[in-house]
């Protein structure tokens, strides 16, 4: 199953885990599995119209899904899905 790297911003909703292994053959499927397992993270990833929030980037390994197939980007068992929100501490 692909791994999902969890940024510090969202570890609160995933019992402080830095990464989780979830099923899914695509980015969309894996994110749905993530939300199913940890519902509180849902509104932080998607807005009320079901669109990925614009301050959230998703990378499959090192490539942004915007350069691939967006949420339909395929995931294999060896892939790592990285969730990258903007943060502004300084």
């Amino acid at each position, binding site marked *: 199953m692909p791994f999902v*790297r969890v*940024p*510090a*911003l969202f570890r*609160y*909703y995933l019992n402080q885990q*830095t990464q989780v292994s979830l099923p899914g053959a695509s980015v969309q499927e894996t994110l749905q599995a993530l939300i199913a397992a940890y*519902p*509180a993270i849902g*509104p*932080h990833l998607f807005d009320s119209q079901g669109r990925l*929030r*614009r*301050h959230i*980037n998703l*990378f499959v390994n*090192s*490539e*942004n899904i*915007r*350069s691939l197939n967006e949420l339909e980007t395929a995931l294999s068992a060896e892939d790592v899905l*990285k969730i*990258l*929100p*903007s*943060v*502004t*501490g*300084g």
Partner: protein
Amino acid sequence: MTPLTKDEILRYSRHLLIPEVGLSGQEKLKNASALVIGTGGLGSPVSLYLAAAGVGRIGLVDYDVVDSTNLQRQIVHGSATLGQRKVDSAKARLQDLNPGIHIETYDLPFTAANALQIAADYDVLIDGTDNFPTRYLSNDTAVLLGKPLVYGSIFRFDGQASLFDARSGPCYRCLFPEPPPPGLVPTCAEGGVLGVLPGVIGSIQATEALKVLLGIGETLQGRLLLYNALDMSFDFVSLRKNPKCRVCGPQADIKELIDYEAFCGVPGHDHEIDSSAAEENLSARQLARRLQESAAPLLLDVREPHELEISHLPGALNLPLGQLAARLSELDSAREMVVFCKAGTRSARALEILKSAGFRRVKNLQGGINAWAREIDPSLPVY
């Protein structure tokens, strides 16, 4: 090009011994300039290392004063400069480290009214900001002026760093076209940060700035460094120019600086603010009087459980802000309630959630439990 003096040759001997730097490289640094936007967690290590390296002219922008909560991470300041203007505090430390460089200070907010003028005279810009409006302002300023911007940002244990130069690669907006909705991403004042984290990211930013000024090595342009201090992982992801970028793309429609606080929906600083309306607020003194009356209101503490170890109000119900929306059914909407957090920012957001759910008898404790500690119960610590 001003050559090095004999004293400078001695001071920078460890640089001169490196083939990629040498005499010519050190002279480049002496004749170079860097603008450090923010003299806080990131700005501290960045400015210290650029000063130590002999960057000839360093500009410091900050409107704030040194307070004790800064000293856990803002290492350019110290107890001796508490209450001083941050740029003056930083300048004194940097000049002590390296009297041979020139420090220019801008003791004012970095805004759309002054950013282009301030930044125009520097070779490289360093993003040491702590809020979204100033971050987007710094990016757009760099793009419009055609200057490289060394980016860094932090939260709790995570850090990000990159080099943005829109002349040949992506800018910040290519990665983050829009800021998060207000309240969705906490600042360090709200969420906390490991003190040493900006030391790591800031040092990386200083490294990138020096590579730009020296013209050596492979920079982070086109890559984003993701640092996780908890598992000590350094990861890199690819960054590409967004062909639809509104500020650096071929059809860019942003040709001048905008109102960044309006764009982001939050102020251009990371101080905690209470955004609730005056009639929704209760001062600590008012709450103290109210608690002595019959039928006292429910106290709802929306902080994280570990914060209760620092200070708490007896009898308060703890329901963290992040769980509030999902647990509203646990609350009696007909009951009078006073919601509070550390300083009033999170509780103001909690108030909005409760009001949206039909709770009508809710007020916000202005200034949070910190205000209670200052005005009512000094036995409680302020944090």
